[in-house]
Structure formats: structure tokens, C-alpha cells
């Protein structure tokens, strides 16, 4: 009985082993025949990229960005979701110096909440901002304003946007935002823009209507009174009113906040307090002394 089992068991093992060896050989030969030359650094880079395939680097997905990096066609600091950590690793793999990564964040430049900006009509179509915008510019009185149907919230691949029920506006959770730009791409009114995190002052209105029109449509819309222009201490002005809308010049603005205080309607937003608090929480949680060169709190 036992010899029976032993012989058959042995034969089974040999049979399976032979099968495995046969296929292994076939695969080994095929591997030699179907060799694909790939830069080993490309595989290394692909490993450390976040694999979000968001496209904010400007390439068709993480694999394409890794390929471009290995071939020397791409700059090393373009991966937004990866952040400074990935930039450092890319620099290490490629053995090059990479410019410092500028953290960015999405900013919703409209404050026309339900109680401040009235609708022209009741919209009962697709709950999608793009569809609503196709319907006579959307239901909001101000044709430049946020329609509040939450397309950007649903589009965010990192769950970094919430729909504020009370106001009907989207809110960016800045700690989670990776500045991939998906929300900015889907917004039909181009209200969301990805802006540097160390610039704290932004005009939260996109309306190009003249001041008297804006006054009738929205309580917090820019009326182009130029009070901000006059208050700006920077030589040459860091905020200008063009086409009935104030806009901050990122290059020269020093984020002093004077324009925020003088604006009569309150359409300029100052993000300093929220971001400094977030940075403080981060450094406290890490237990490290506050003050990191890449940190906006510095």
C-alpha cells in the first residue's frame, strides 16, 4: 500500500515538476526573444510615483512621466500629489539637482453662497455644473458665479473637496489637496484655480460685470471700485482692476492683506490664518520644532 502511494506520489511530483520546467523553459526563451530595453531608472521612478495618474505633471499618467524623466525630457518637480518627498527621491534616482517644489493648492474664487447671490430660475435638470452651465449659463443670477451642484466635489480623486450644504459652495480641504487640477478642469466657469500655497491673498470673485450690475446680483461680488488698488503698498501695485474685476499679481504681491481690509464688499480672501494653523498642527503632530524651509509657516 505504502509503496503504491510512494510510487504514484513520486510520479505525480515528477510529472508536475516536468510540466513546470517545460513551461519555465518556454517562458525563459520567450523572455529572451521578447526583450524590451528599458532604462532601469524608469522602473525605479515608477515605483516611487504616487500612481494617481492625475496628469497634473502634464504627461499621460505616471508611467509616461517616469519615461520622460528617465529620458531627460521632464523636470523633476512636476508631480503635485507626490510633493517634496517625491521630488527629492527623483533627484536622488536621476542624480540631478531639482528646483524646489512649490506647494500649490486649489482655490475656489467665488463667495456667492445661496444667501448672498440669488438664482434667476429654479434648475431641475442634471445635478452637474457643466450641464447647468450649458442651460443659459446656469441658474445663478451672476453668470460668472459658482453653480453649487458639486461637480468639482465629485471629481476630486483625493476626497479633498466637500460640498458645504449651508452655503451651496464647495470647500477645499487644503490638507488633502494635492493640486492635481482635476477640479479646476471640470469647473465650467473656471472658478477654481491652482495657486501657490505661499500666496495668501486672492480675489474671490470672477465677475466681469460692471459694478452696478454686480451689486444687484451678489452681495460679495467685486464692484471694481479700485479701493484695493489704492491701498496696495507695493511699488507698481500688486492688485489691479481690469475689465471690472480686481486681480492679484502673484509675482509681486507680498500678502500684506491691506486690500482685504479696505474692500467694501469683502470679496478678497486672506488664507493666511487657516494655512498657518494647519502648518502649526502639522509641525506639532510631528513633534519637530516649527519651521521647515518648505513650509509656508516659515
Amino acid at each position: 500500500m505504502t509503496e503504491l502511494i510512494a510510487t504514484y506520489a513520486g510520479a505525480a511530483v515528477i510529472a508536475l515538476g516536468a510540466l513546470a520546467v517545460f513551461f519555465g523553459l518556454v517562458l525563459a526563451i520567450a523572455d529572451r526573444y521578447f526583450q524590451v530595453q528599458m532604462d532601469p531608472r524608469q522602473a525605479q521612478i515608477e515605483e516611487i510615483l504616487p500612481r494617481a495618474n492625475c496628469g497634473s505633471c502634464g504627461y499621460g499618467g505616471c508611467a509616461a512621466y517616469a519615461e520622460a524623466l528617465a529620458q531627460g525630457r521632464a523636470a523633476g518637480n512636476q508631480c503635485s500629489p507626490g510633493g517634496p518627498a517625491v521630488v527629492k527621491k527623483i533627484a536622488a534616482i536621476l542624480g540631478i539637482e531639482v528646483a524646489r517644489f512649490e506647494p500649490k493648492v486649489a482655490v475656489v474664487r467665488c463667495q456667492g453662497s445661496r444667501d448672498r447671490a440669488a438664482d434667476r430660475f429654479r434648475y431641475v435638470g442634471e445635478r452637474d455644473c457643466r450641464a447647468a452651465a450649458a442651460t443659459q449659463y446656469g441658474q445663478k443670477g451672476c453668470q460668472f458665479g459658482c453653480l453649487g451642484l458639486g461637480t468639482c466635489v465629485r471629481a476630486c480623486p483625493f476626497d479633498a473637496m466637500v460640498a458645504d450644504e449651508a452655503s451651496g459652495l464647495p470647500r477645499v480641504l487644503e490638507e488633502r489637496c494635492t493640486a492635481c487640477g482635476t477640479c479646476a478642469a471640470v469647473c465650467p466657469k473656471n472658478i477654481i484655480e491652482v495657486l501657490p500655497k505661499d500666496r495668501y491673498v486672492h480675489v474671490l470673485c470672477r465677475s466681469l460685470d460692471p459694478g452696478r450690475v454686480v451689486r444687484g446680483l451678489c452681495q460679495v461680488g467685486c464692484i471694481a471700485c479700485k479701493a484695493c488698488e489704492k491701498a496696495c503698498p507695493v511699488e507698481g501695485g500688486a492688485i489691479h482692476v481690469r475689465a471690472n474685476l480686481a486681480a492679484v499679481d502673484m509675482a509681486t504681491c507680498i500678502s500684506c492683506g491691506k486690500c482685504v481690509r479696505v474692500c467694501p464688499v469683502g470679496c478678497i480672501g486672506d488664507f493666511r490664518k487657516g494655512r498657518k494653523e494647519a502648518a502649526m498642527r502639522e509641525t506639532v503632530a510631528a513633534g519637530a520644532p516649527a519651521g521647515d524651509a518648505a513650509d509656508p509657516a516659515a
Partner: protein
Amino acid sequence: MEVGYLELAIGSILISNFVLAKFLGLCPFFGVTRRISDSIGMGLAVTFVMTLASAITALVYRHVLLPTTDQHTNLLGLVGLPVPEGGYVLVLKTTSYILVIAGLVQFVEMVLRKNVPALYRAMGIYLPLITTNCAVFGVALLNTEAWRDPSKGLPVHLAAFNGFCGGVGFLLAMLLMSGIRERLAEERVPKALRGLPIAFLSAGLMALAFLGFSKLFGIAV
């Protein structure tokens, strides 16, 4: 009735569709069908693997697992190894089939990576996942044992054809499902049903429709 090409084709594509009637290949059926382009690629790859896997596993079944009969010889017996009366079917079938399929998928991966890199990158992680696709392994099992004469299974050419038809049925089901899901994405679906639940309900209705094919042309599969 004599099993021929027509019976296999209608049986595997319509009457016992691998996805909608046999419950095989459900993970990619619900995972990959968000876009029609994805499902076409996946369906074609799976069809290709199913055809080849059916052929090779049928060969392995007849010449390695089954004991020697007057129609075919057992290669192990030829080499001199002992073969029990029932053959090695019970002990080696699962492992050898999965070896065949894993090797085959690896091979297809290599070929695609070299010759059609765009498709290779588009399929991404789904290509190695074909190894664990129930449909591929299932068709190999169905061809060889669950058939009418379990001691013989389907002959190799019919097994390969059955694999091909199973793949075509899989592709058909995926195409229909992705067409429905692309339309569903624009509809107002109740929040709790969005995504997977409504896909399952759609699949249920599709299965109901395919039930109408049973006993088509008197074919009983």
C-alpha cells in the same frame, strides 16, 4: 446530440453565457466595464487567453492526466513512470491547469509589452489579473471534465473552439454591460444604488434576457 461547432457556439455564447448564466468572470465584468474601450481590450485579451488555455489544457488532460487508452497515450507512461488506473486527473488537474494558465498569461504579457506597448500600458494591472479570472480556469475545467463524457472531455480542436466561444460570449456580455453603464453614468441613480448596485441590477436584467435563449434550436447545454 452530437456536439459540433454550431452547438458549442450557440451554447457558450448565448444559452450558457459564461458571465450571465455560468457566473464566471464576474470580477472583470464589474470592474472593467466602466468604459467601452476598456472592456473591448479586456474582452479580446481574455478571449485570446481562453482559446489558447483551452487548447493547451485539453492536450495536458489527454496526454498527461488521463491514463492511456486506444485514442491517446499518456506521455508519462511513455517515459516509464507509473500511472494509476484513474490517471492523475484528481491529483494534478488543478495544479497543472493553473500552471498552464499562469505561464500563458505571462507569455501574452511579454508579447504585448514588446509589440503593442500602448495596449500593454492601457491594460495595466488587469493583464496579470487574467490569471485569476474564473472564466479562463472555468472553461478549461468545463472542457475537460464537466462535459458529457468525463473520461474523455472535448477533443482538443473542439475544446479550443469552446474556449474561443466562451471568450466571445464574455466579450459580448462586457460590451453590453459597458454600454449600459456608460449611459447609466449620466442618469439620476438613487445615491445608495450608484456604482456597483445598479450594475448588478442591470446584469440581472441582462441575465433575464439571456434566459430567453435557453433551448434555442433544441440545444441543451
